[in-house]
């Protein structure tokens, strides 16, 4: 079991967005998480990524409790979300090299270049990202999540703004991590794009994660 989250609860002000949400991810699983707008998918993903503290519940990552401070856990988790999580003043290559280096990935620059190549972004690898189109930013943002060959992937709407080629590129990367034994959580409103990669479908509803 790579990740197990039990009875996660999170409230903003007085409103409980998540309540007793439980989810377990095994090696090689690719779980598609769906749910209505505002259901709490992004909130859950941010909690699992250690960016947000849950109010209740417990999360175990590879057997031990996951806390915001656990540096090696963070390095083993790849996360992409609605916000690009990049410095738009830098180029894609500079961004990926920076984050790879800080995460202790070996040969950071060539790892970054490799991922950009995989997502057809090589022609733009050395252009500042400020003026990139929506889909171009998204590709780099997803690439960031794969930098450290993570054992847990949390992809919050990875296909947002991507064309077919981009979608295929992302799916190929997911396929590889799956083959490597990583657990993957993909949040998407589109139930088709993940295709045959999907091993399970879950839905967030009324603050809980339900199998569907």
């Amino acid at each position, binding site marked *: 079991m790579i990740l197990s989250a039990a009875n996660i609860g999170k409230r903003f002000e007085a409103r409980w967005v998540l309540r007793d949400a439980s989810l377990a991810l095994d090696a090689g699983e690719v779980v598609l998480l769906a749910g209505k707008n505002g259901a709490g998918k992004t909130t859950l993903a941010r909690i699992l990524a250690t960016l947000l503290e849950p109010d209740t519940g417990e999360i175990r990552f590879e057997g031990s409790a996951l806390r915001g401070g656990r540096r090696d856990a963070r390095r083993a988790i790849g996360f992409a979300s609605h916000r690009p999580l990049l410095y738009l*003043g*830098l180029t894609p290559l500079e961004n990926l090299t920076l984050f790879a280096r800080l995460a202790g990935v070996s040969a950071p620059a060539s790892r970054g270049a490799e991922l950009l190549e995989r997502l057809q972004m090589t022609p733009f690898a050395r252009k*500042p990202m400020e003026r990139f189109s929506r889909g171009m930013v998204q590709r780099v943002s997803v690439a960031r999540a794969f930098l450290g060959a993570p054992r847990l992937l949390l992809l919050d709407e990875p296909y947002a703004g991507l064309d077919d080629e981009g979608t295929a590129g992302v799916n190929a990367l997911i396929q590889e991590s799956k083959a490597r034994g990583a657990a993957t959580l993909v949040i998407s409103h589109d139930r088709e794009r993940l295709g045959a990669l999907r091993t399970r479908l879950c839905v967030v509803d009324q603050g809980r994660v339900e199998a569907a």
Partner: protein
Amino acid sequence: MTLLTVALKDLQLHARDARFVATLFLFSASLVLILSVAFGPIFRNPAQEASATLWAALFFAGVLGLTRSLDLESESGGGDALRLTGADPYAVYLGKTIANVILLGGVFLLVLPIASVFFDVGNLKVLPGVLGVAALGVIGYAAWGTLFAAMARGLKARELLLSVLLFPSLVPLWIGAVKVTQALWAVGTADAVRDWIKVMVVSDILALALAAFLYELIQEASE
């Protein structure tokens, strides 16, 4: 390593925006202008006038510089991504502090000649002394500033909050800098205000030490 990477990244972001540096310079020049026009004719004491103006200009320019660094972190989530790399928070703090020291030091080096020419103070003999105070002042400013900037992260009206928080904590450092610079320019030695130098050193060390304990907590403070 982490430290250098972070410092370089910050400087790179600023350098990419070369206009930012030019603007910071022009801004400091207009601060000198406005403060001199406002307060100029009151004093018959150029050393005090010049050192007060110099440090006031540095102060305001610094707040804007810090805000800018902060915006670069939060505008598209780069700061969050930095956290997620699992890099040592204190090294991140030091890296950012170093970048800010270099930025503020640059502003100081630009404003110093302006102030010297406009107020006709200073000479090469006291220059090393002045640079020494400047180093103490700028390090303290950057150290406190980086700490508070991390707290102001995610708040609206950051620059305002930053200045409200920073002002009080920097007052001792700031009075020290003004007094010592003034003494150097007026009488050529800082012997009479030696205590203020101690105050500045203590303030610098305090900020760096507090950050060692608090920076990780601040960084992890989430909604």
